[in-house]
C-alpha cells in the first residue's frame, strides 16, 4: 500500500490539471490552425479520436527523451547510452554519435547474464553455427530441434515441475496460454497490479474476470467466497473452473507475492493457481528457483508456473511448467506452440547454459556467487535508500526497488539529472502505473560491484535532494515515521 502525502497528492493533481489545461489550449489553437489548412483525412475517420492520444501528444512527448533511450552495448552493469537531440521541441529525437558510459540501474539483468559470459557465450555461438539463428518453422511442424527438447527438460527440472513447454516470447506466453486453459464459464481472479500480458490473456480467453486487491490474501478469499456462492453472472450456474493469477515479484512494485497464504486459500476453495515468475525466476531463492524456493512453497501446489527468460537468464522467451498432462494438452492446442516460430536456437542455448551456471553444473561456484551477490546488493541498496529518506517500495530480497516521485515534473528531472551524472535509471509514468504514482525504478544486478552501488547511491541522493523526492526525513527519525505510515494504510 502506498500512502501518498496529502500535500504531494494535491500538488500532483494540480500539476496534471495544469498540463491538461495547457494541452487543451494547445489543442484548441491546433484545431484553428487545422481548420485553415485543408482537411487531409479525405473521408477517413481520424486514426485517433478526440482525447485518445491526448496523453501522448501533450504530456508524453514533452518528456519522451527520458524513455526509449538507445544503448549501443550489452545491457551489463555499465553500458553505453547514445545521446539524442531534438530540433523540434522533443517531437522527434535524433541519435548523435556521442556515447556516454553510464551505470545501468534499469535493465532486468538480475544475474548478470546479459553480457558475454565465459561459459555461455562460446556455447551460444556454437549452437548458432549448428542450428542457425532461427528455425523458420513452428514447434509443431519442423521447429523442434534437439536443443528445444533439451531446454524443456532443463527448465522443468529447474523450476521443479514434471514437464515444461517453451515459447519465443514471454508476453505471448501469457496471452496465448490463458485462452487455451479457460474460456466462457470460467473465472479468472487476477491481482489488481498484474502485468498487461496477463490482462490481455485473460481478456482474450472470454472468461469472467474479477480483481482482488493487490497482494491481499484476505480480499482474495472474500472474492472467492462471493464468487463461488454466486456462480456465473445472470445464470448463477456454478463456475466451470477458477484461476487465481498472481506474479512472483511485481515488477512495478518490487513486492514479493504472498504466495504461501494465496496457495493455501486456493487449495481450500479448489481454485487453480497460475504463477507468473517473470521477474522472480532465477533472481530470488536459495538456488535461484524463484518465489517458491524463497518462500518455501511446494511447487506441486502451484498448478501452472509461468516465467520468462528475458530477465535473469539474459535471453528471450517464456515457459509454462506443470504436470505432464497439462504440457501435453498445451502442446496439442496452444496457438503459440502451433503457429509461432519456435524460440531461436542460440537463445535456447543461452538459457540452458545459464541454468547450468546457476545450478553449478558448469563445475564452478559462479552461480551461487551470483545469487549471493544479487541478494546482498539488493538488500544493501534498499536499506541505504531508505536511510536517505526516499520512499522505497517493495520487500527485502527483491532486486526491484521503486522510488516514489509522484509529481509529473519530477519524472524528467530525476531521470535527466541522474543521466547527467552517468547513472541510467528508469522512470515509470502513466501507462505502466496509475497516474498519481509515478516512480523511478531501480533494478539491481549481480554484476554491480559495491563501488558501483555506492556511486549510484551518491548520485541518487544528490539528485533526490535537488528534485525533492526524499519524502521521509533521513535516518534517525525514519523508523518511527515508517511505523506510522503502516498504521495509516
Amino acid at each position, binding site marked *: 500500500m502506498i500512502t501518498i502525502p496529502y500535500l504531494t497528492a494535491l500538488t500532483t493533481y494540480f500539476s496534471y490539471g495544469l498540463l491538461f489545461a495547457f494541452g487543451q489550449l494547445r489543442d484548441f489553437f491546433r484545431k484553428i490552425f487545422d481548420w485553415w489548412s485543408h482537411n487531409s483525412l479525405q473521408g477517413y475517420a481520424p486514426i485517433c479520436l478526440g482525447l485518445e492520444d491526448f496523453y501522448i501528444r501533450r504530456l508524453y512527448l514533452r518528456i519522451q527523451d527520458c524513455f*526509449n533511450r538507445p544503448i549501443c552495448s550489452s545491457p551489463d552493469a555499465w553500458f553505453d547510452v547514445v545521446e539524442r537531440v531534438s530540433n523540434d521541441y522533443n517531437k522527434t529525437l535524433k541519435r548523435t554519435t556521442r556515447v556516454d558510459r553510464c551505470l545501468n540501474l534499469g535493465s532486468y539483468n538480475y544475474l548478470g547474464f546479459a553480457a558475454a559470459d565465459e561459459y555461455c557465450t562460446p556455447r551460444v555461438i556454437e549452437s548458432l553455427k549448428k542450428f542457425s539463428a532461427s528455425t523458420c518453422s513452428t514447434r509443431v511442424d519442423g521447429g523442434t530441434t534437439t536443443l528445444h527438447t533439451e531446454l524443456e527438460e532443463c527448465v522443468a527440472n529447474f523450476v521443479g515441475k514434471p514437464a515444461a513447454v517453451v515459447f519465443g516470447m514471454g508476453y505471448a506466453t501469457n496471452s496465448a496460454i490463458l485462452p487455451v486453459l479457460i474460456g466462457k464459464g470460467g473465472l479468472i481472479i487476477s491481482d489488481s497490479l498484474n502485468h498487461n500480458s496477463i490482462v*490481455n490473456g485473460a481478456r482474450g480467453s472470454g472468461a469472467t474476470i474479477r480483481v482482488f486487491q493487490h497482494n491481499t490474501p484476505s480480499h482474495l478469499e472474500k472474492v472467492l467466497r462471493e464468487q463461488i456462492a454466486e456462480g456465473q453472472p445472470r445464470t448463477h450456474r456454478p463456475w466451470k473452473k477458477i484461476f487465481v493469477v498472481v506474479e512472483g515479484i511485481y515488477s512495478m512494485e518490487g513486492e514479493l507475492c504472498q504466495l504461501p497464504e494465496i496457495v493455501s486459500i486456493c487449495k481450500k476453495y479448489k481454485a487453480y493457481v497460475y504463477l507468473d515468475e517473470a521477474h522472480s525466476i532465477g533472481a530470488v531463492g536459495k538456488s535461484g528457483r524463484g518465489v517458491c524456493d524463497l518462500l518455501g512453497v511446494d511447487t506441486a501446489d502451484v498448478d501452472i508456473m509461468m516465467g520468462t527468460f*528475458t530477465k535473469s537468464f539474459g535471453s528471450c522467451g517464456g515457459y509454462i511448467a506443470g504436470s505432464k498432462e497439462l504440457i501435453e494438452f498445451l502442446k496439442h492446442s496452444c496457438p503459440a506452440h502451433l503457429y509461432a516460430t519456435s524460440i531461436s536456437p542460440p537463445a535456447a542455448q543461452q538459457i540452458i547454459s545459464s541454468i547450468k551456471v546457476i545450478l553449478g553444473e558448469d563445475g564452478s561456484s559462479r552461480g551461487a556467487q551470483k545469487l549471493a551477490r544479487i541478494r546482498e546488493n539488493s538488500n544493501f541498496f534498499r536499506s541505504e535508500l531508505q536511510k536517505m529518506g526516499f520512499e522505497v517500495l517493495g520487500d527485502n530480497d527483491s532486486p526491484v526497488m521503486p522510488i516514489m516521485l509522484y509529481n509529473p515534473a519530477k519524472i524528467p528531472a530525476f531521470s535527466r539529472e541522474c543521466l547527467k551524472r552517468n547513472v541510467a535509471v528508469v522512470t515509470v509514468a502513466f501507462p505502466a502505473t496509475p497516474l498519481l504514482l509515478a516512480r523511478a525504478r531501480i533494478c539491481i544486478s549481480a554484476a554491480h560491484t559495491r563501488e558501483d552501488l555506492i556511486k549510484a547511491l551518491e548520485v541518487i541522493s544528490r539528485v533526490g535532494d535537488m528534485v525533492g523526492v526524499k519524502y521521509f526525513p533521513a535516518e534517525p527519525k525514519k523508523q518511527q515515521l515508517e511505523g506510522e505510515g503502516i498504521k495509516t494504510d
Partner: protein
Amino acid sequence: MINFSVNSNCWKKYRRFTLLLAAARLETKAPARRREISPQDVLRTLPYEEIPFISILVEVSCVLQVNSMDTMFSAFETVAKFVSDWGTLAFDTPYARAVVFGVPIRGHLLVEGLLLVVILFLLSQKSYKPPKRPLTKKEVDELCDEWVPEPLIPSITEDMKYEPPVLESAAGPHAVINGKEVVNFTSANYLGLLGHDKLQESCTKALEKYGVGSCGPRGFYGTIDVHLDCEARIAKFLGTSDSILYSYGLSTMFSTIPAFCKKGDVIVVDEGVHWGIQNGLHLSRSTIIYFKHNDMKSLESILENATHDNKRAKKLRRYIIVEAVYQNSGQIAPLDEIIKLKEKYRFRVILDESNSFGVLGSSGRGLTEHCKVPIEKVDIVTAAMGHALATEGGFCTGSARVIDHQRLSSSGYVFSASLPPYLASAAITAIDVLEGNPDLITKLKANIATLHKGLSDLQGLEIVSHPESPIVFLRLKRSTGSMKGDLQLLEDIADHLLKEHSIFVATSKRSTVDKCKLPTGIRLFVSAGHTESDLAKASESLKRATALVLAGQ
C-alpha cells in the same frame, strides 16, 4: 399556478370582500351575535367565482375566533358546524367553483385535492422490496464445499499426444531427423537464408557485442542501436517513412490491431485469417464482419452494407484486414481490387505480409510490388520476420503517424522485452542480401513453378494455393467429413513421407481456440534452397505416399 377569478373586476371584488371580512371579524367579537355569522352569510354577499378562495380566509379567521372562545364546548360546536357547513357547500352548492388555467373547476376539487394528497403520500413511501436475506456464513461455506471445479485440462486422448519429429540439425532445406537426412518442406525459409554465411557472421558479431537478450522492454534501455537501424532499414527497403520492430512474429498482429481498432470501430476481415489476427480482433472489441475467403464480391457487398445509409459509420474508424498470402490456404489476396474498394468506401487497410515479404514482387517487396500498388495506399503493413528473413520477430511499417502511435499504444511493443539484438542484426543483413541477390527470388519462383507442375497430376489431393504462393497447400479432394478425420489422413501421408521417402512435410494443425473454418491440408514451404532433384523427389514421393495411404483407407 392557480389563477383565481380571471374576470376583469376580480381585484375590486376581492378588496370589497376583505373589507367585509374585517367587518365580520369585528362583529364576532360580540359573543351574543356570534352565531349569526356563518360562512354562508359571508358568501351570500359575494359573487360565486371567489368562494373557494374566500373560504380559506374565513376558515383562518374562524380558527382565530375559536382561540378566543371561553369554553371548549362552544369551540367544538363552532368547528363542527363550520365543517358541516363547508362540506355541504363544497359538494352541494352549484355556485362553488374556481378557475384553474381558465378552466372552471367545480365541487370535485376537494376530492381531487384529497386524491393528490394520497398520491403524494404513496409516492413518498419506499417501493416494496422483498426482504433481503444474504447468505449466511454457513451457507457460503456449504456452497464452497459443494462446488466441484472441472479438471484443469480435459482428459488427454491418444491423438493429443503428438510429438513432432526432432531435428538434429539446422532447419534448412535439408535437415537431419533420427540420423537420416531429409528434404525439409516445413521451414518457411523461402529465400534459403537460414545458415547463410553473412547472416551467421552478423549474428556472431552481435552476440559477442550485445550478448543474447536485451534484458528490458524498448522503453527502459531495451532499445539497442541495431533495433533503430533495423527499423530504418526495413522502412528504406519498402519505401515507407518508418517502421517498428516487435519481438515476436505472432504478437505483431495481435498488438497492432488493438492499437488502432477500439470498441465501436468496424473491421471487415477475411474469414481465413490466422490466429494472430483473430486474437487481435478479439482484443480490439471492435465490430467484426467476416467476408468469404478471398472473395472480392463478398467483400464489396459487406462494405456496401456496412456503409450504406449508415451515417454513423462515416464517423467510425473502418478497417479491412487481409493477409497477403494466407497461411491457412496459400491463396494470394488481390490487393489491387481491395485498394479500389477501400478507396471507394473509405476504409483503411491492414495487410499482413508475413508470407509474401521477400517473396512476391520482382525485388521481394511483397504484395504491393506484386500487384503494382504504391505502398502508401496500404495504411498499415505488418510482417513476421521468421519466414523469408530467416530470423525472428516481426515488424509493422507505414506512415510516421501510424508507427509513432504504436510506440506507446501497442501492448506487445510497450510491455514486452525487445527483440534480441542479434536477431535484429540478422534481419538487417538478410535485407542486404535480398537486395544484393535478386536471383534468390528468381530461383524461388522457379522452384514454386516446378513443384506446382510436379504436383499437377497428383491423385487424391488438390492444390488450392495460388501458383505463385511459396506455400503450396494441398487439400484432400474428397473429405472424410470431419476435420479430425481429414487431419488424421493427412497426418498418415506426412508420416509415411518422412519415414519411407525422407520428405519432411507438415499438416496444417488447428488450435482448439482457432476459429478458422477452412479445410486443413498439407503445407509445403518452398525454398530457394531446394534443388531440382529435391522438388522432383518430393512430388514423386507425394504421389506414391498419397496413393498408398488413400488406397489403404
